[in-house]
């Protein structure tokens, strides 16, 4: 599926509980803006951004899926065909990460082929000491802040890289 006129195209999904910052991360990445107001996502919104990895142009088609504590409730067709996903938690709210190992396990079963990254978002709300003391059930791949932009581009680029690398090794 993933060829377009311009290059490679990949579907990725952002998942996690409500208000962890999924929409804000996408907005920061796609439009460089941080929405000031919290407007909960319902259902699904799709955005798109092209990234350059060396000679390669990769289009990320990003499915922003409404926050859901119980991944089983996400419509399976939202997830089908995803090449990768980012599971986002809010570092400042334990309720968003206390069950993350179980939630990720369920998502793995729903998207067995998709590559995963875990984002610990809202890093800006915690001091270095608080960050060090946090004991998350799954260690995030990136600590991000949609507010300051820290690690946001890096995370999406890294996922794009993993997906392209995956193509190269499975080809």
């Amino acid at each position: 599926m993933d060829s377009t006129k311009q290059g490679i195209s990949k579907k990725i999904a952002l998942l996690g509980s409500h208000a962890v910052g999924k929409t804000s991360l996408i907005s920061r990445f796609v439009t460089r803006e941080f929405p000031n107001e919290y407007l909960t996502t319902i259902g699904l919104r799709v955005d798109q951004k092209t990234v350059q990895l060396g000679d390669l142009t990769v289009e990320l088609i990003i499915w922003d899926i409404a926050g859901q504590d119980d991944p089983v409730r996400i419509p399976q067709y939202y997830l089908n065909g995803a090449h990768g996903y980012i599971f986002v938690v809010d570092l400042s709210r334990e309720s968003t990460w206390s069950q993350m190992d179980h939630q990720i396990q369920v998502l793995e079963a729903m998207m067995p082929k998709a590559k995963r990254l875990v984002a610990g978002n809202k890093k800006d709300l915690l001091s270095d000491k608080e960050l060090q003391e946090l004991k998350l059930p799954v260690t995030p791949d990136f600590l991000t802040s949609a507010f300051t932009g820290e690690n946001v581009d890096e995370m999406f680029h890294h996922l794009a890289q993993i997906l392209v690398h995956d193509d190269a090794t499975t080809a």
Partner: protein
Amino acid sequence: MRCFTTWRKSWFMMTLQQLKAHVLDHSAQVIVFQKDGLMVDSCHTLSGVKSWENKSLYDSISLLRSMQFAFSHIGNEEVIDIPCVDFVLEQRQGYYDFTFSLHPENPDLVVWLVKDQTRVYRYYAAIQQERNLLRLEKEYKERGQSA
């Protein structure tokens, strides 16, 4: 005074089928496209979709572009359900339910049913927003108390 019994069926010019089509016209649109994305037909009841004519929908709509694989493998009886999509249908921003299935008479074509559910989902969004804000407030309060 007009008596209830004088309301005879024959007074109505429309059959029930026509009436149903008339009512649904304002809330749904059917778009037919080839598996390579080329739009073949549309009933235009929600939007004229002029900018999509004679083009591959995959070039214009990233959501569909990311589903190409699903369309090329869609089963005979399968209905791909993508509910509650925050979507701009030719300048009409709203919430739509999408379903995709094979054309009953030509399996090379995909039938895309677009149902405009904006009114319902806006109401739901307002409730969900309130619920989420309340949950956040409660969590922050509890954290404040335990800190």
